[in-house]
């Protein structure tokens, strides 16, 4: 697996199963992974009040933070906010993962500065796209954000294949949720359940 550049990803998820899976996905995608179980641990690792910027405590620069949304203690959203509020860390792209496609939640995260919102279970194609996106270091942010907020779900299979020349496609189209019953609200969320299912083309 020869890689031109290796990204170091900090993965944050309270689920053992999900941590193991995301770690494998990232390894296959030529990324170094540090996996932690909570927002608190993530901030500890990043040394929030340390002098070095975007370095982990082991001195490895973090290129991307991939965090679950629903976690006990500190949610992914709260972690995102703390990172964006920190002058040392705010430049690190943060991607939120969730098993629920709740549009107001997605909006909030994107507004707070999340680069992307991935639907769980996360797939290899999602991670590869993410990696390529971070490596390119570009992205027409405004247009993409608008697309996501309007819920334009481009579910076409070919987007989920390796197409590195594409601009960052929305991952809202990973519609694993279509077949399952409408998601009930998470107890940690105080917003009403999003029962409306966006029609996928």
């Amino acid at each position, binding site marked *: 697996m020869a890689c031109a550049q290796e990204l170091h990803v900090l993965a944050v998820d*309270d689920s053992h199963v999900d941590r193991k899976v995301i770690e*494998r996905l990232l390894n296959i995608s030529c990324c170094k992974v540090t996996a932690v179980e909570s927002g608190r641990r993530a901030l500890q690792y990043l040394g929030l009040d340390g002098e070095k910027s975007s370095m982990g405590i082991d001195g490895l620069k973090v290129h991307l933070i991939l965090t679950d949304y*629903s976690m006990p203690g500190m949610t992914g959203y709260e972690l995102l906010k703390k990172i964006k509020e920190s002058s040392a860390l705010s430049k690190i792209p943060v991607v939120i993962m969730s098993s629920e496609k709740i549009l107001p939640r997605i909006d909030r995260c994107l507004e707070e500065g999340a680069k992307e919102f991935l639907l769980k279970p996360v797939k*290899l194609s999602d991670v590869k796209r993410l990696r390529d996106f971070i490596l390119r270091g570009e992205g027409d942010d405004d247009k993409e954000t608008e697309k996501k907020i309007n819920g334009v779900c481009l579910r076409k299979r070919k987007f989920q294949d390796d197409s590195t020349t594409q601009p960052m496609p929305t991952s809202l189209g990973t519609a694993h949720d279509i077949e*399952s019953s409408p998601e*009930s609200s998470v107890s940690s969320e105080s917003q009403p359940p999003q029962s409306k299912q966006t029609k996928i083309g």
Partner: protein
Amino acid sequence: MKNQKQRQAAYMRRSLLDQGYLDEQFIHLEELQDDANPNFVEEVVKLFYTDSARFIRNIELALENGPYDFARLDNMMYQFKGSSSSIGARRVKRQCSQFQEYCNAKNIEGCKNTFQGVKQEYATLKTKLETYFQMER
């Protein structure tokens, strides 16, 4: 001998998918295996068993006596559902969703009955997967 086992494993996998015990997520996980990580799926599933045992135990305790904290029950089941979804445990996941609906409706009897369903589906899947992994090895 080995080919026959592989055929049996493939047949069982097909069967588990067709009967809805597993969904495509399980296949995605298998695609992540390689010579260096030949038992990845089994390792993930073992973590699932450990987590599930904990979730089941905690939910069981929470269902024992009132007053019932539906928000907490919902949250615990949400986590269990997440794990199930991550390994492609389709039927278990659906039972979890049903349980959550009863939580939302604050219907404790519904919760208790559905929880039996959750445990049953989990136990069934566990047995089938154990057989499957034996074939795979």
